[in-house]
């Protein structure tokens, strides 16, 4: 039986933040994730590192937390944060009176807002609608959810942290009202095992209610579904927020090669209600048109949805009415010692949430080491010498991206693969510029069990063709490398293509439709994937 001091449940931003904080303070910890890291809400959002402007008017405290954490993360997380800055733009449809209130509220909590002329805004962002009325610059930034989670894990691992993915919690073991262990099942093998521990921290987000229920405790988390659209290219190089009371479809965030538009808000019953639909997409486009009038001429890549873990002590509060602040629930008050749930909150403040929870846990464990997550970088900068070396081996526009995804150690390994076999330099994913060597490195990681796991680590398959060409290449690479999880290539094909299809289906018109027909031609026509699966009776 494995033993640890603290088990953290949930491989999203909060969970990995807690894992890192605990490990940095010398507390032994294991993180459990039912799927892959960043599978849940931490990758199913717009990736905006809020300046706080969005919350300033209605929730000054959330706004203040945002600007403080934003400032910290731009420093410690510069390999997952892109300092794009942001605009708040009021369109002709928005209430002028709100603008003054907003400027005042931002000033009150210390969010800098710099007014610029519409003309200047259009010069900086030519795709913006010329009908906008006023524009302010704010210190928003874009943060890559996948990379941020991975970099927290990489940092935690350095301090001895362990991570088990595809591991779901099926029971909380207690003795004399004290947590003594946790029962888990590996979702890939079905194997059930126990982990002995003194403490459990549930950072399961929208699933926190389900986890608490395993201990017979009621935690009222209301999953609130948000749908977003990813566009094929950077239609803006800055974040653009609509200057109005927070509502649907008013945030555009550029991320690397793409732009994300979000978000909708609707209460749902299940935390994994994440299949987007065409109606939501059309609604988002209708709203988005006020900021980018040519929005319908920009190609969409896919739609995706996540669920916000809204918490309220009041079981009737829902949607944007519920607080976006976070709450730490010490279940000692419910009669079970050694069990804490952290609920609510938002991505931007994940580190602060982790700090508060870790303070609480360390108090119980009598650990006095102070928190250092605000001062120690998530990953160290890649040395100029290593970057220069990387540029010799990676194709153009590839070295910086690979370095930010891989970190120095990973980068060295991928370079070594290319040095050994120069043909591994070729791109497996041309749209997102991912080399064969990097895909092989990610596939060989102990947390990879399917092609989608490789995708989340590399961005492979997340560009223009949405897997049309990289699916057969990556399946081939996994097969050729003789990886234990790559034995049944039909299953690999199906898992990846179906995953892509989920986000494509709600936007199936125009160029996307043409792309999909090409994909269908490759996999159904040329490779006869469905026929192969049927013939082998799977």
């Amino acid at each position: 039986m494995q033993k640890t001091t603290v088990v953290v449940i949930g491989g999203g931003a909060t969970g990995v933040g807690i894992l890192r904080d605990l490990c940095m303070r010398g507390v032994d910890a294991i993180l459990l994730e039912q799927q892959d890291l960043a599978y849940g809400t931490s990758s199913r959002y717009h990736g905006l590192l809020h300046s706080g402007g969005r919350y300033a008017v209605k929730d000054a405290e959330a706004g203040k937390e945002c600007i403080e954490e934003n400032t910290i993360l731009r420093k410690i997380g510069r390999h997952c944060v892109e300092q794009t800055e942001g605009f708040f733009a009021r369109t002709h449809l928005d209430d002028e009176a709100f603008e003054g209130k907003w400027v005042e509220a931002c000033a009150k909590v210390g969010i800098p807002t710099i007014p610029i002329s519409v003309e200047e805004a259009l010069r900086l962002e030519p795709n913006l609608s010329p009908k906008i009325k006023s524009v302010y610059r704010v210190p928003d930034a874009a943060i890559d959810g996948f990379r941020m989670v991975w970099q927290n894990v990489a940092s935690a691992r350095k301090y001895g942290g362990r991570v088990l993915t595809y591991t779901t919690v099926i029971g909380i073991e207690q003795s004399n009202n004290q947590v003594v262990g946790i029962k888990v099942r590996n979702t890939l093998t079905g194997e059930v095992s126990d982990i002995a521990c003194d403490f459990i921290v549930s950072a399961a987000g929208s699933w926190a209610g389900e986890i608490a229920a395993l201990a017979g405790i009621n935690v009222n988390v209301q999953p609130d579904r948000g749908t977003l659209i990813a566009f094929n290219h950077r239609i803006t190089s800055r974040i653009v927020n609509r200057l109005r009371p927070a509502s649907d479809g008013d945030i555009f965030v550029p991320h690397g090669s793409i732009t994300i538009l979000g978000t909708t808000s609707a209460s749902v019953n299940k935390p994994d209600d994440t299949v987007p639909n065409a109606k939501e997409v059309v609604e988002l486009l209708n709203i988005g048109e006020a900021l980018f009038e040519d929005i319908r001429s920009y190609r969409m890549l896919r739609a995706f949805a996540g669920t916000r873990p809204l918490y309220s002590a009041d079981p009737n509060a829902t949607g944007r009415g519920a607080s976006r602040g976070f709450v730490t629930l010490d279940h000692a008050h419910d009669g079970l010692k050694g069990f804490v749930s952290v609920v609510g909150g938002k991505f931007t403040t994940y580190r602060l949430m982790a700090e508060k929870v870790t303070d609480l846990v360390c108090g119980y464990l009598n650990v006095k080491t102070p928190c250092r997550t605000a001062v120690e970088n998530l990953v160290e900068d890649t040395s100029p010498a290593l970057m220069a070396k990387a540029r010799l081996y990676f194709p153009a526009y590839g070295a910086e991206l690979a370095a930010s995804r891989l970190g120095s150690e990973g980068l060295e390994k991928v370079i070594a693969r290319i040095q050994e076999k120069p043909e591994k330099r070729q791109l497996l994913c041309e749209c997102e510029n991912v080399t064969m060597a990097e895909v092989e490195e990610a596939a060989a990681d102990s947390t990879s069990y399917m092609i989608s796991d490789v995708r989340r680590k590399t961005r492979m398959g997340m560009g223009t063709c949405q897997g049309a060409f990289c699916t057969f290449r990556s399946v081939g690479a996994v097969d050729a490398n003789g990886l234990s999880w790559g034995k049944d290539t039909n299953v690999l094909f199906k898992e990846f293509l179906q995953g892509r299809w989920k986000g494509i289906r709600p936007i199936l018109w125009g160029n996307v439709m043409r792309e999909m027909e090409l994909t269908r031609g490759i996999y159904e026509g040329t490779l006869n994937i469905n026929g192969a699966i049927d013939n082998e009776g799977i």
Partner: protein
Amino acid sequence: MKKHHNNPDSCTACTVCIANCPVTAATRKFRGPKMVGPTLERMRLSQDDIEPSLEYCSNCKNCDMSCPSGVPISTLNMLARAKYFKNRKRSLRDWILSHGEKMAKLSAATPGMANFGMKMSRGILKKIGISDKAPLPAYASKSFIKLFKNLKQTSYPDKVVFYPGCFINYNDPQVGMDFVAVMQANKLEVIVEEGFVCCGSPLVVNGFLDEAEENAKQNVQILKKWTDKGYPVITCCTSCGLMLKQEYQELFHIEGVAEYAKQLYDADEFLLDLHDQGRLNTNFGTLNEKYMYHAPCHLRAQGMGLPGVELLALIPGLDVQDADAGCCGISGNYGFKDDKYDISMEIGSGLFKAIKDSGRDTVVSECGTCRLQIGHGANVKTLHPLTLVRKSYEAYHK
């Protein structure tokens, strides 16, 4: 005015452009039109880096032609090249090759001396990166503009405006004179506007986009002036035609190009239109001669078929066979560059072989630099189609 989105959104990554790219077929140094064009365009919008193989795109436009999604791939490459050179020094070689018009004006006083000097200085040119093997054109002793001024035309009520372009004006004025003779034979008076400047094609391919835009603005103003009055404008150079008609729209945001483009014609196309309307002078004398024909890429890119072949088919006795063997490799000044010469010859090798296999000793083609390259690569004589049309009209009266 239609907003031209030079964004990569229509590309489905189908790779048809790669299969049709003559440069990709000739060298592995080029990563291919899809990668360098629309795929990297997404990256160029998000970060600064240098794609070393961008310089290998020849702007021949076979990618654009083959794209089933209408992506202006080569234009994306040219814009990327301009962006690359925005803050970098251009080589003397690229400046010289891009400024044929300026060079010609400098040499215009003494073209004989300039040609002599050029022959003597091929060694020097080689040192700055111009191949000593490439078929550089010689300057004509008198420019087309000079010859035209001394020409006495018969005045007719129907007039056309001629855009000669640099190659015809400075290197091959006879084509321009043949054009005027053919127009006169069709009772059309030719107007030549001296305000026209280089179309910008040689500037664009070497990243001098700002200068090309200045030229475009001047040309557009003149073109609009004449087409607004209802005069057709005619070119004999297919690269000039493509630039004035289509590339201006893709590269720049200048009002009115789409409108005048409807009245801008290639000379062969214009004559065929006259024929369709029953207005073409069909007093063609018999020419019992055999020729090969090469369709320039920039003609094919205009999507007008092969008007030269159709036109020449009207001439009795004339046997013109379409080589149909792809790009000749020169692509304007691409093949003049020392580091591109071998690639350029490799691209043209299929065409050269087809010509040699035909046993015919003269090749007809609309494009001046194609003619240079074919003469050099296949060791044959070359002609513009209008030279044969004029010859046929003259044969009728003999």
